[in-house]
C-alpha cells in the first residue's frame, strides 16, 4: 500500500468518477461538502489516494468497501477526528459550505459536523445529561430540557425513555444506546451527521430502527454513513461511494451503482466475489 506501488493503478482510474453522479442528476444538487484530491497517511503508510467526491445536501451518502479500504478514515477526516491520532497527515482540500474545514477552529467546526461511532459510547451519566452534554459544553442559550426532548424525539427514543431520563445511560439496550448517541449528536444541531458503521454492534431489529431513523433525519441534516453491509447502503442511501485499497473506485447514485456499476471491481464487490 505504499505510494510508490500505486501510480499505474491510479492513472487508470480517473478520480472524477464523481461526474457520473452529476450526469445522472442534472437538477443541480447542492453540495454540503466537497472533498478534492485527498491523500491521507498514517506515518509513511498511505491509506487514501487522491479521493475526490461531493456530499449532497440533505441526502444520505454511503461509503462502502472491504475492511481496510479507508472508508472509516475518510469519514473521520470529515470532522477532523484524525487529528487526535499521532502521525496522521493529509493532503488535499475539504470544504464545508465552500469553506476550507482545516482553517477553522476545530472545536466549533466539530459542532457543525457531528459523529456517531461503531459501538454505542454514551457517557457514564444519565440519559438526560448525555443529550445535554453538547449544549452544556457549548454554553448554549436555548432551554436545555426542551432541546433534550426535541433531540430524543428526532432520534425516535423519547417515548421509550421519557419516564426515566435520570437513569444511567448504561441501563438502555445497545440499540437504544446507539439512538441515544444519535440524539446526543443531534442536540447541537449539526449540519452534517457522520455515522461510522452505526449498526455493526446491533441486532437486526435495532438496525432496522436506526436505518428508518436515518432516512427520516435527512430532512434535518446531511448524512454520511460508513457500512460494510451493502444491503444497508442500498436501502438507505441516495449516493454510494465504493472504495478499494484507499482509492475511490466508483461514486454514483445508489440505484445506479448497484444495478449498473461502471467498474468491474465494483461489480465484483457488490456481487459478493470478494470482501
Amino acid at each position, binding site marked *: 500500500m505504499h505510494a510508490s506501488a500505486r501510480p499505474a493503478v491510479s492513472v487508470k482510474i480517473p478520480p472524477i468518477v464523481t461526474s457520473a453522479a452529476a450526469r445522472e442528476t442534472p437538477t443541480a444538487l447542492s453540495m454540503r461538502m466537497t472533498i478534492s484530491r485527498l491523500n491521507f497517511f498514517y506515518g509513511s503508510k498511505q491509506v487514501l489516494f487522491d479521493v475526490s467526491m461531493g456530499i449532497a445536501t440533505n441526502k444520505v451518502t454511503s461509503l462502502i468497501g472491504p475492511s481496510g479500504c479507508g472508508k472509516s478514515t475518510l469519514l473521520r477526516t470529515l470532522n477532523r*477526528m484524525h487529528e487526535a491520532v*499521532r502521525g496522521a497527515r493529509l493532503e488535499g482540500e475539504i470544504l464545508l459550505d465552500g469553506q476550507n474545514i482545516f482553517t477553522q477552529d476545530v*472545536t466549533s467546526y466539530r459542532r457543525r459536523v457531528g459523529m456517531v461511532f461503531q459501538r454505542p459510547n454514551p457517557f457514564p451519566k444519565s440519559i438526560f445529561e448525555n443529550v445535554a452534554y453538547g449544549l452544556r*459544553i457549548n454554553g448554549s442559550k436555548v432551554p436545555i430540557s426542551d432541546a433534550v426532548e426535541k433531540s430524543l424525539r428526532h432520534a425516535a427514543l423519547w417515548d421509550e425513555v421519557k419516564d426515566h431520563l435520570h437513569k444511567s445511560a448504561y441501563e438502555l439496550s445497545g440499540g437504544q444506546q446507539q439512538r441515544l448517541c444519535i440524539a446526543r449528536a443531534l442536540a447541537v444541531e449539526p449540519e452534517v451527521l457522520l455515522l461510522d458503521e452505526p449498526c455493526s454492534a446491533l441486532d437486526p431489529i435495532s438496525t432496522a430502527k436506526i436505518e428508518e431513523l436515518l432516512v427520516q433525519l435527512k430532512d434535518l441534516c446531511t448524512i454520511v454513513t460508513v457500512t460494510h453491509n451493502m444491503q444497508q447502503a442500498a436501502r438507505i442511501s441516495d449516493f454510494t461511494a465504493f472504495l478499494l485499497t484507499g482509492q475511490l473506485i466508483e461514486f454514483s447514485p445508489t440505484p445506479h451503482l448497484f444495478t449498473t456499476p461502471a467498474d468491474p471491481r465494483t461489480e465484483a464487490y457488490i456481487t459478493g466475489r470478494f470482501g
Partner: protein
Amino acid sequence: MTPRLRWRKFVSGFMLAMTGVCALVAVSVLFFILGYLVYHGGTSISWNFFTKLPAPVGESGGGMANAILGSAKLLLIASLFGVPIGFFGAIYLAEFSGGTTAFVVRYAADLLNGVPSIVIGIFAYGLVVLPFKHFSTLAGGFALGLMMIPITLRSTEEFLRAVPRALREAAMALGASKWKTIVTVIVPAAYRGILTAVLLAFARVAGETAPLLFTAFGNRFWSPGWQQPTASLPVMIFTYAVAPYDDWHRQAWAAGLVLLGLILVINIVARAILSRGIAVPRS
C-alpha cells in the same frame, strides 16, 4: 491403579495441599496481628485514651489525644501537598505527555516510591527543619506528602488510562476541547478509581514512623498551630513500646489498635467506593 498413576495423584494432592496451606498462612498472619492487637490493645483502650494528654512519667493513666490530633494534622498537610501534585501530574502523564517524557516521569515516580521512608525523613529534615531551625507539623506533613505523590500519581494515571478511548472521541466529536473532555468526561468517569487511589495512599502514609522521627519529632503536650513539634500515633507507639514502663506498653498497644482500625476503615471505604456507582464498561 498403576504405581505411576498413584504417584501422580499423590503429587497433585500434595501440591494442592501446599498451596492451600500457604494461602491460609498468608491470610492468618493478618488475622493473627489483628487478634493480638485487639487482645492487648482492647484491654488498655479507654475513653481517656482519646481525650487525655499523656501522663507524666511515673504516673499511670493519661491518653494520646494530642497524638491523634497530631496525626490528623500531619495527614491533612500531607494530603494538601501530595494529592494535587500526584493528581495533576497524572493528568499530564495520561493525557498530554508522550514517549520519553512519560517514561522518565513514570520511572522517577517508581524510584521515588521505592526510596526508603527514613531517607525521605532526612530529606525533609534538611529541607524544612534545618532552615526553620525547629521540628514542626509542617515538616512532618511535607515528608508524608512526598511519599503520597508517587502512589497517587501512578494509580491515578492507571485509572485515567483505563477510560475507554470511545468516550474521549464522543466528547471531542461534540466539539469539546481537550481540557473540557478531561474535566467533564474523563475525570468523572475515573473519579471512583482516583478517590480509591488517594485513600490508599493516605492509609499507606498514616502508619509511617520513620519520616516523622526527625521532622514532626514528638511532643508530650498539645501542639498549637503548624510550626511546633507534634506528637503522632506511629511515633508514640515507637516511643512507648521501647520505654521501660508497663503502663506505657499498654498505651502503645492501644495506639496500635487505633491506627490499624483507622487504616482498615479507610481500606474498606475505598473498596466500597470502587464497587458501586455507574461503572464504565471496558470496550
